[in-house]
C-alpha cells in the first residue's frame, strides 16, 4: 500500500512539475512572428528572425547585474514582479519604446522595441519572453538585435529588503555593435538600466541607489560570427528610415492615381 502511495505521490509530483514547466517557459519557435502590431510601433527586424542567445553573438560575453533595494514592508518580491510585468514600458527611459504584447509579459510573446541610439539613430527590433514566473521573467533577443543574449528581471527578499534586479547576459551581436559598445555603448547601457531600476524604485516611493556589477564572462570575440552583421537591426533600420521619402512618394502617387 505504501508502494502504491509512493507511486501516486511521484506521479502527482511529475504532473505538477510538467505543468509548471509548460506554464513558465516559452514553447519552441523556429522563427519569430508578431501577431498584433501595437499602434505607433514599427515592426522591423523581428518577424522571421531566429532567437540568438549569448552563444550566438560576436563580442566578448558580459554579465551585468543591476540591483536596487526597497523596504520589504513597502513591496514584496512577488508584488514587485507583478507590477514590473504590468508596467514594464512605463519604467523605460525616455526616447525608447517597449511595445508590450497585448496579452502582457507571458512566455512566448513577442514585444517590439523602438529605440534611440547615440546620434539620434532610430533602431527597431524586438524581444521574446523566454520565461516568466511569479518572481522573475526573462527576455531573449532575436538575430540583428544589438545584443545576442537575454535579460532576467527578478526580485528576492534579502535581509528584510526586497531586491529588484535586472541581469543581462550578452555578447554584442556583430563587429559594428561591438565597436559601439567599446566606444561608449557600455556606459549608455549601464545608464539605461540604472534609470529603469530607479524608475521602479520611484514607483514604490523610494529613492534608492542602483548597484551595478559587471563581469566579463568570456574575453574572446567569436570571429566566426562576424557575418551576423547581415542581420544588423541598425543597418536595416537606417535603410528603412532612408527609404521613408521614397515610400511616402509612392503612396502619394498611388493615391493620386486612384483619385484620377
Amino acid at each position, binding site marked *: 500500500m505504501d508502494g502504491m*502511495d*509512493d507511486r*501516486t*505521490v*511521484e506521479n*502527482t*509530483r511529475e504532473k*505538477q*512539475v*510538467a505543468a*509548471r*514547466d*509548460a506554464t*513558465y*517557459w*516559452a*514553447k*519552441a*519557435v523556429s522563427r519569430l512572428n508578431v501577431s498584433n502590431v501595437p499602434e505607433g510601433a514599427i515592426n522591423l527586424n523581428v518577424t522571421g528572425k*531566429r*532567437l*540568438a*542567445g*549569448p*552563444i*550566438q553573438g560576436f563580442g566578448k*560575453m558580459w*554579465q551585468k547585474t543591476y540591483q536596487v533595494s526597497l523596504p520589504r514592508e513597502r513591496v514584496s518580491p512577488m508584488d514587485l514582479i507583478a507590477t514590473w510585468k504590468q508596467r514594464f514600458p512605463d519604467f523605460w527611459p525616455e526616447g525608447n519604446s517597449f511595445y508590450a504584447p497585448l496579452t502582457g509579459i507571458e512566455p512566448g510573446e513577442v514585444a517590439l522595441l523602438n529605440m534611440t541610439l547615440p546620434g539620434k539613430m532610430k533602431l527597431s527590433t524586438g524581444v521574446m519572453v*523566454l*520565461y516568466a*514566473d511569479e518572481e*522573475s521573467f*526573462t527576455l*531573449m533577443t532575436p538575430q540583428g538585435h544589438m545584443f545576442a543574449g*537575454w535579460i*532576467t528581471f*527578478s526580485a*528576492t527578499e534579502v535581509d528584510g529588503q526586497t531586491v529588484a534586479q535586472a*541581469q543581462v*547576459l550578452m555578447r554584442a551581436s556583430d563587429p559594428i555593435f561591438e565597436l559601439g559598445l567599446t566606444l561608449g555603448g557600455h556606459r549608455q547601457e549601464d545608464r539605461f538600466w540604472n534609470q529603469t531600476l530607479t524608475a521602479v524604485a520611484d514607483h514604490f516611493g523610494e529613492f534608492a541607489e542602483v548597484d551595478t556589477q559587471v563581469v566579463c*564572462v*568570456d*574575453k*574572446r570575440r567569436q570571429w566566426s560570427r562576424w557575418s551576423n552583421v547581415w542581420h544588423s537591426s541598425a543597418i536595416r533600420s537606417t535603410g528603412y528610415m532612408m527609404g521613408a521619402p521614397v515610400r511616402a512618394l509612392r503612396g502619394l502617387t498611388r493615391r493620386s492615381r486612384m483619385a484620377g
Partner: protein
Amino acid sequence: MREATMTTSEMSTVIRRRDRVAVIDLVGDVNARAEDSLDTAWAEATREGPDAVILNFEGAGYINSTGIALIVGLLARARARTIPILAYGLTPHYREIFEITRLADFLAINPDEDSAVRGAERSST
C-alpha cells in the same frame, strides 16, 4: 498517504571521473541558488585538465532561466579552455528549452552517459 508538495531543492553536485572525462552529476533545482555549487563543481571537475566535461541532468529538478544562464557561463568558461561540454539525462521539456535558447548549438545532448562518454572521446581525438 503523503502529500505531493512542490518544493524547491538546493542543488548539490557529485564529480566523477571516467578515464580522461569528468562527469558532474547535478542533483536538485538549477536556479540562482545553484551558482556557488556549480562554480565549485566546475573548478573541481577541470582541476586535472580533463579531455571533456559531461553534465548529468538525470537528478536535476526544475531549471529556471537563471539556471540556464549559469550553464551558459560554464560553456563560456569551457570554450575559453577549449574543453568540450556534453550533456545527458535531460527531459524532453528541457531538451526543448536547450533548443529554444540555442544552448544545443554548442552542447552535445546525449541520451545516456555511455553515449556522452563516447561523444567526449570522439571530440577529444
